[in-house]
């Protein structure tokens, strides 16, 4: 069924060229103080930017060889990746590194010039708490279902999920479930769209969607759409482009995106664009950033808005990458 976006006003369209230019400009802002303050997100930023470019149909707008070199320059002896050279290894940047290499079809470079897939898998596996099944972000940090999802995401892309105790991790997710069908950051915590995405996606990767109360969860998720078309992350909160992605992708995973109004959501995301200079913000009229840019574009792609490559809802990567890796 093709989507009907005919009620979206004509002046709202996808500013593809502007977005490509915006993403290309991100690494040329070395004379801006913020560029230096955000170095701890460099590898994540590359993943966000590259994913957006792939979905926009401009996968080569950032030079492939440079991207691979940069990723490999962030790797530590233990296999983990830091956010940039000189930054400590962390789950979040390691997952981004794997996702980037997957998108660029460059796992062979990791074998040849990096520490190899197996070592990356070992690093991630070392962060699992074998008693509870959940994961930490690094050797110092707290445990969080975000890290569990990240581990499943990267390990499955690497074909190394067997390095961790999947059943224990699944048990942990089940313990994070709430009566409203949603999931919290840890057992006892309130349902939250971001955590729901991580838990539902992890269960999907583990092949354990049977544990999800799809009816209740679908109800909770669909109630996130509020007047104006955007989605919020929790009851009585404001709408936001990034939450819109987590809710929408979770709905997709449980087969219920038709429970919200897609055209109104598409219009909301389109209104968050900076039409002139490119980029997408959390809400209309706010400052853009690459984080909301990728989730806005991914959201539009999932809504089948014209002119975009299809996105995979579990990995937030191009469908073509996922089918190349998993052969489906």
């Amino acid at each position, binding site marked *: 069924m093709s989507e009907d976006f005919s009620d979206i006003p004509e002046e709202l369209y996808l500013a593809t060229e502007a977005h490509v230019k915006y993403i290309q400009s991100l690494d040329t802002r070395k*004379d801006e*103080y913020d560029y*230096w*303050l*955000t*170095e*701890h*997100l460099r590898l*994540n930023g590359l*993943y966000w930017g590259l994913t957006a470019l792939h979905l926009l149909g401009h996968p080569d707008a950032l030079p492939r060889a440079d991207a691979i070199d940069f990723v490999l320059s962030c790797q530590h002896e233990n296999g983990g990746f830091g956010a940039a050279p*000189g930054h*400590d290894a962390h789950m*979040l940047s390691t*997952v*981004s590194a794997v996702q980037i290499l997957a998108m660029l079809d460059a796992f062979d470079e990791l074998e040849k010039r990096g520490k190899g897939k197996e070592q990356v898998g070992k690093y991630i596996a*070392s962060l*699992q*708490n074998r008693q509870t099944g959940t994961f*930490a972000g*690094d*050797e*110092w*940090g*707290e*445990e969080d279902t*975000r890290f569990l*999802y*990240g581990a499943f*995401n990267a390990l499955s892309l690497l074909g190394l999920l067997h390095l961790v105790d999947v059943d224990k991790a699944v048990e942990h997710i089940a313990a994070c479930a*709430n*009566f*409203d069908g949603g999931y*919290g950051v840890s057992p006892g*915590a*309130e349902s939250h769209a971001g*955590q729901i995405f*991580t838990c539902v996606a992890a269960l999907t990767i583990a092949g354990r969607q049977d544990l999800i109360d799809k009816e209740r969860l679908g*109800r909770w998720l669909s*109630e996130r759409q509020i007047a104006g078309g955007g989605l919020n992350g929790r*009851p*009585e909160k404001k709408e*936001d482009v*990034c939450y819109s992605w*987590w809710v929408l992708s979770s709905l997709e995973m449980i087969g*219920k995106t*038709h*429970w*919200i*109004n897609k055209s*109104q959501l598409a219009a909301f995301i389109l209104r968050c664009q*900076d039409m002139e*200079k490119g980029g997408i*913000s*959390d*809400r209309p009229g706010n*400052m*853009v*950033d690459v*984080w*909301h840019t990728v989730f806005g574009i991914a959201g539009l792609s999932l809504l089948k808005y014209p002119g975009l490559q299809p996105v995979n809802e579990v990995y937030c990567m191009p469908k073509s990458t996922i089918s190349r890796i998993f052969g489906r």
Partner: protein
Amino acid sequence: MANQGGSQHGIARTSRVRTEAQRQRDLERIASYRVLEDDLRARVKNPRTAYADRASAQHVFDLTTRLLRLNPEYYTVWNIRRRALLVLLPAGPKARRGDCCDRSSCSCLGETQPSHGCPKAGRSGTTADDAGDHTSEENDEEKKQDDEETEKQTRTMLQTELEFTIPLLIESPKCYWIWSYRLWILRQSISRLPVPVARGIWQAELALASKMLTKDRRNFHAWGYRRHVVAQLESDALGGGSMVEAEFQYTEDKIRADLSNFSAWHSRSKLIPRLLEERGADEKARREFFEAELDKIHNALNVGPEDQSLWYYHQYLMLNLTTLPPNNEHTITPTLPIEDRIAFLRNELAEIRDLLEDYDNVKLIYEALIDLTLDLCRLEGKRKPDEEEKENLREWLGKMKELDPMRMGRWRDFEEGLRREWGVEA
């Protein structure tokens, strides 16, 4: 990945063109930031020398202070600060006994990382345990004084660390790394200080969490943080006991101040099973408790029937009726006879229907009425709705479609389910 650091939330879009003066100012700030960063990086490049002695560690530590004030999101710098602090902290009596990594008193991730937080296994390989090299000739009195001195020093240092993060937290209340560092410091207090002292530090932390929740009543981090702090205060490691009554009262106060605080309602729902268990509530007490909760939510719904938070809690209470043995030991009234469950549901239907008299255009009321009707059919042996109920269901569904066309796909699926499962033709 779900990492919100560095993203812009709620900042108005302004012209991205800088004046030349602004650009110059940026360049100056960049220069001084990078000098600091380069200095620190050069020092920690070789971990063997960076933390080799107190003076080197102190220098590294001071650099992290300056850098983190400029950029609290710089997680690597927080890690460096931890490494330096492990050298600077005196090896206390607890640490000297070698139980500084006692798993039972440490909720950290020690299981997977043997070196975690243990000064004797610091990653730098060089640690401050020389303080432990006391000879046996020392008399006990001297040792006691030493211990007191060590304890005082440790306490001061940990407290200084907690204070260091406060202005950073006020500026960036959602910065994950600051919270994570705080928790690490707090854990150090458990492993390095006598229980009553550590307990005092964690108690002050609970006060901080309360303060954060007064400022932002639904701050997700602060609610989770509070749960974590309470769990620690309840643990054996801090000589604690149950705080479930006090925490339940806390949700009561929060709800009284603001009915639509879903975080507080949620917390309440999670505390109730433990509360009743610890009270040793019998069947009668449980039933009375349930009735009181129902009254509370009815009163709230009477003034705010549009409030989703209230309806979620209402759904939670209804689950208590519809979840039957043997899988309901965590409900409020697990042994309630089926007739009573049915009676409660019928009463509930009447109560919620009364709301329609004042509010006939609130979707959530119709949704609840449909849920309750089907719950009733299920409890009564999964019977089909009777003619009157069918008529009601059709009418209420029609109202939902009319009031909430945004979720039309959901209502259509629901309509189909009504036809297929319950024999309700459109």
